[in-house]
């Protein structure tokens, strides 16, 4: 791929001066998310972009010495380890390809195209406008989640889809139910086995929809607990549920026919 074609593909300047200025701003961190993602995508495809960025990384790196180190919270290593440990349970036995998964594959390809594509963490990927519960899915991990009381909210079913991503499907999205008090949201959490603090998976959509959590946010494992809490405003930003946890489910390995 020529530098010009690549520059055109990512809508980036093709001239050395323009490239160097944008590379410097990318390293400095002042670019907006969209421009930053386009530059990040160019790093892998073009030696000139890579060299320009590496030169700026080297030039500005000493500035890190101005930053005071700070002890990280104790549980972070456990959370990292949980995310990098593969689990054979997720290898799909009968991978299906339908438009849903093709859509996901395209999204995944776009995500792989650049560092900046990870910008929206934690992210909930909405795949389908409405749930389709007909027909058993060839999943290996299931975790029914039920409402604890009044059934004022829709119930959700958690499972792991053919790509190994955690998926939540609303169950019984009956009209009139699923109405949250004004100013409240449902927030999704995962508690990995042995962990003392949950992983924040983000706020669920207001309308009942199938939601997929990419593995780079959380890698589903057996015995992982999935929780949904009711939170005020835009959700808890503390890393833990602040409001009541109304839904709890544990992922268990199941065998499906076929």
């Amino acid at each position, binding site marked *: 791929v020529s530098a010009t074609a690549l520059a055109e593909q990512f809508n980036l300047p093709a001239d050395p001066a323009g490239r160097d200025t944008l590379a*410097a701003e990318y390293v400095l961190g002042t670019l*907006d*998310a969209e421009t930053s993602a386009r530059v990040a995508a160019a790093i892998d495809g073009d030696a000139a972009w890579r060299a320009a960025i590496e030169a700026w990384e080297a030039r500005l790196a*000493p500035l890190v010495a*101005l930053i005071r180190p700070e002890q990280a919270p104790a549980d972070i290593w456990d959370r990292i380890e949980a995310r990098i*440990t593969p689990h054979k349970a997720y290898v799909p036995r009968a991978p299906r390809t339908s438009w849903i998964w093709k859509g996901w594959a395209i999204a995944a390809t776009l995500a792989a195209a650049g560092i900046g594509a990870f910008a929206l963490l934690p992210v909930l990927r909405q795949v389908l406008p409405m749930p389709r519960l007909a027909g058993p899915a060839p999943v290996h991990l299931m975790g029914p989640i039920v409402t604890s009381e009044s059934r004022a909210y829709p119930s959700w079913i958690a499972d792991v889809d053919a790509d190994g991503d955690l998926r939540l499907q609303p169950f019984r999205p009956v009209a009139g139910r699923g109405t949250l008090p004004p100013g409240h949201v449902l927030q999704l959490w995962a508690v990995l086995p042995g962990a003392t603090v949950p992983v*924040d998976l983000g706020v669920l959509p207001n309308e009942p929809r199938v939601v997929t959590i990419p593995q780079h946010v959380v890698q589903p494992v057996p015995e992982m607990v999935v929780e949904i809490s009711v939170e005020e405003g835009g959700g808890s930003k503390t890393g833990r549920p602040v409001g009541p946890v109304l839904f709890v489910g544990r992922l268990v390995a199941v065998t499906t026919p076929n």
Partner: protein
Amino acid sequence: MPAPKGATAELLAAVAAGDREALRGVYRVQSARLFGVAMAILRDRPAASDALQEAFVRIWKRARRFEPARGDADAWLASVARHAALDIARSRGREAASDGSPGPAIDPDALDALAATDPGTRLRDSLRRLEPKPRAAVVLGFVHGLSYGELTTRLSEPAGTARALVRRGLASLREGPS
């Protein structure tokens, strides 16, 4: 707590080969430094924790891209952590938050800590040649991950001038001390 020179690069080579214990070793010696980097940008422990976690997952996945001949291991790790934190800052609407009250910041004129290394000394000398505003724009932009809007507020500049200040600063740094 800096590791001996070269030790981190060796650990990264083992990480690239899939050695989880080596990643743990990197975490042990680098997590405080990298958490500081994330905190300087996000100023919020839960968000900085997410950034550190994301940074180490990226280090795990991308360690094979690190080439010791092309750069310093500590610098590479800091870059991964900075971009993980910047991604979170942007997803929280950093660009829109230009009129919020600025939090505490480092002093952009206190650059003596840079003199610990030769490249740092060269950078310090280049920065000292700059006028105060372009110098502050580059140093605060890097350390605190500020957007152009936030830099405008921080430097009490008219709207739209932060980019010009940053570019002026960066252009001088490209040339280096002469």
